[in-house]
């Protein structure tokens, strides 16, 4: 029963593929008088599978994007003692549909002096990496869209593409605010990409592979509970997870790191000159990117699709992902925005050294013996002490000046 | 079929394009970018040699390409930092205007 639900989507997919191949056979018989050759059938099946995966990802995550916008508005409202959307559908659940319809029907404005081509390309280029990132995450047992042995680095490489897109958007608009926002976004993302990658390195070190499937497999345990080997339980894993979350927040330009689009300063940053559906694409890219980051966090630290065998694996994956999304929303509702120099100082003076030391800690963990329970406990305590010491040193000495008064380096 | 020669010719073409940019353009940034193109051409050539070479299990081409990328990144970082400093100093990044190294 459990297996049935667990593999439900795969089964459905297999059924559709079979159906398409059967249809293909029928068409072929009708046209050429003979069924498809072995190779052709294989090609058709593979093609169908790719299409199915794309469609599923687009569909599911477009839906998730909608849900996430609803969730965000609802949660923010709760945090601010309001109701939030509650008109369209039960609990305002279909609000996003209404919003989407509104967006689609709005006028598309292109500024007169804009770099038309770049301005046009930017939204598409922004969305592509965000969606592409899902190609590397295993959503459930036997449910990895691709199975690269370079998946983690591929994920980050694809993610890096979105920076260029943001810059294109900002620059193409020919607007002071948007170019400022874009430069901020790019500087911030390039800065936080380093701790982001370094936070993932420990996991890669311990697993010995860049493949997300293997990373997830390494966190699986045999028991019913199936959560004992999640990396987040280890000290370095916990530290890495926190680092990853913070960096991911910055990477997806979320509050408190939302300077690129800070309404009070830059109106809306790089997408100030976009409207209508192009704006919706930016919006969508942000949310989908955020969910992809959450998915990677789940994969790296929270055991991927592993979880107590009460729910199917893909539900675990989505559930954990949404948990992180909720955390990001909570953060947005709670924290004020940072200043630019604070933002940079935090990345370079706090997160980077801490992440580097976390790698060292992981090496220590890796080499400590963990054969018996006692040894494991000792290893755990030692690494925990190291992490704590690193945190203390970094917070005490290295980033002591991160919160200092602003120093105007270039503006004097 | 694609032969090794195709890749090498393409790489040499890219190299020539990069060289052209490097000797022609006055803007220091473009010169640097042209050099990056040359680096890329070299990397492409290396990887192609690896792919077609007799000892692919040695992975020499790949490893060299990674080193090349690393060095190119270092070069870009230092180069662009220099460009910024030069700009502050000369208020220009025309390579022709920098000639205080004249012997």
């Amino acid at each position, binding site marked *: 029963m459990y297996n049935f639900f667990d593999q439900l989507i795969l089964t459905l997919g297999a059924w559709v593929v079979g159906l398409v191949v059967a249809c293909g056979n029928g068409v072929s018989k009708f046209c050429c008088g003979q069924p498809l050759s072995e190779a052709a059938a294989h090609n058709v099946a593979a093609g169908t599978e790719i299409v199915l995966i794309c469609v599923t990802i687009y569909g599911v995550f477009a839906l998730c994007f909608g849900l996430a916008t609803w969730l965000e508005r609802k949660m923010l409202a709760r945090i601010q003692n309001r109701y939030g959307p509650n008109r369209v559908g039960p609990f305002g659940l279909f609000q996003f549909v209404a919003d989407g319809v509104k967006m689609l029907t709005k006028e598309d404005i292109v500024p007169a002096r804009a770099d038309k081509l*770049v301005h046009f390309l930017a939204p598409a280029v922004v969305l592509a990496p965000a969606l592409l990132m899902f190609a590397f995450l295993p959503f459930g047992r036997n449910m990895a869209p691709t199975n*690269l*042995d*370079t998946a983690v*680095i591929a994920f980050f*490489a*694809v993610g*890096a593409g979105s920076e*260029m897109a943001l*810059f*294109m958007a900002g620059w193409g608009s020919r607007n002071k605010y948007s170019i400022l926002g874009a430069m901020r976004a*790019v*500087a911030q993302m*390039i800065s936080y990409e380093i701790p982001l990658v370094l936070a993932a390195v420990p996991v890669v070190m311990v697993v010995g592979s860049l493949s997300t499937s293997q990373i997830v497999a390494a966190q699986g345990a045999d028991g019913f509970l199936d959560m004992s080997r999640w990396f987040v339980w280890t000290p370095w894993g916990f530290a890495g997870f926190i680092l990853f979350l913070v960096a991911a927040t910055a990477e997806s330009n979320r509050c408190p790191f939302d300077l690129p689009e800070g309404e009070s300063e830059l109106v809306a940053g790089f997408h100030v000159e976009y409207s209508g559906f192009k704006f919706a694409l930016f919006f969508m890219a942000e949310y989908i990117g955020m969910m992809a980051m959450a998915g990677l966090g789940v994969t790296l630290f929270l055991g991927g699709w592993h979880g107590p065998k009460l729910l199917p694996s893909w539900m675990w994956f989505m559930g954990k992902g949404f948990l992180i999304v909720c955390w990001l929303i909570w953060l947005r509702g709670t924290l004020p925005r940072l200043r630019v120099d604070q933002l940079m100082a935090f990345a370079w003076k706090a997160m980077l050294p801490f992440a580097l030391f976390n790698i060292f800690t992981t090496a220590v963990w890796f080499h400590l013996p963990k054969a018996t329970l006692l040894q494991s406990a000792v290893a755990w305590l030692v690494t925990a002490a190291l992490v704590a010491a690193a945190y203390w040193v970094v917070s005490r000495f290295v980033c002591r000046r991160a919160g200092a008064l602003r120093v105007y380096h270039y503006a004097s | *079929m*694609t*032969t*090794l*020669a195709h890749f090498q*010719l393409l790489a*040499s*073409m*890219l*190299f020539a394009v*990069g*060289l*052209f940019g490097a*000797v*022609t*353009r*006055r*803007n220091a940034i*473009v010169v*640097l*970018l*042209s050099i990056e*193109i040359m680096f*890329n051409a070299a990397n*492409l050539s290396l*990887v192609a040699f690896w*792919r*077609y070479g007799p000892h*692919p*299990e040695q*992975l020499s*081409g*790949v*490893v060299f*390409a*990674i*080193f090349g990328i*690393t*060095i190119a*990144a270092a070069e870009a*970082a230092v180069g*662009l930092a220099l*460009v*910024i*400093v030069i*700009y502050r100093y000369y208020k220009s990044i025309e390579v022709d205007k920098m000639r205080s190294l004249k012997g």
Partner: protein
Amino acid sequence: MDVTFIILSLITVVGAIWAVTLRNLIHGVLSLVLFFFGVAGFFFYLNADFVGWVQILVYVGAVAILAIFAIMLTHNLTAKDEPGFFSLRWLTGMAIAAAVGAVLWFAIKNNAAMLQTAPAGVTSSVADIGRKMMTDWVVPFEVVSLLLTAAMIGAIVIAMEQISHRK
């Protein structure tokens, strides 16, 4: 010669030519990004996945962005006083590039080994690359990492020096 190769060649060559010739520096950089993606495509095509991803991560994610920052910080969105296509400077440059290209062409054409086709089953797994780097290539690897660190520190020091002098 197959379709993939042709498409990628086109992307690469066109991107490269645009990158060195366009007056608008931002367009130049964007073309360069196109070129970088093309080269990454070639790497995938040559089964060097890891190099391809690194190419994207480093060039698109870092070098191009750095170039953009340099352009922005030097207030040089377009190269205004660049000489025209038929100026002596451009012709000299083309001649030199052609000469070098011709030498390479000559060398490649005269080499029979260049005509071989791709052997099957050549892959580069990350684990193998890592193992190579940590065994046979460990010294260059360490040297390069040192170089990179030195370059990073150097870049920061160079860029910061003005500030400290100004104070």
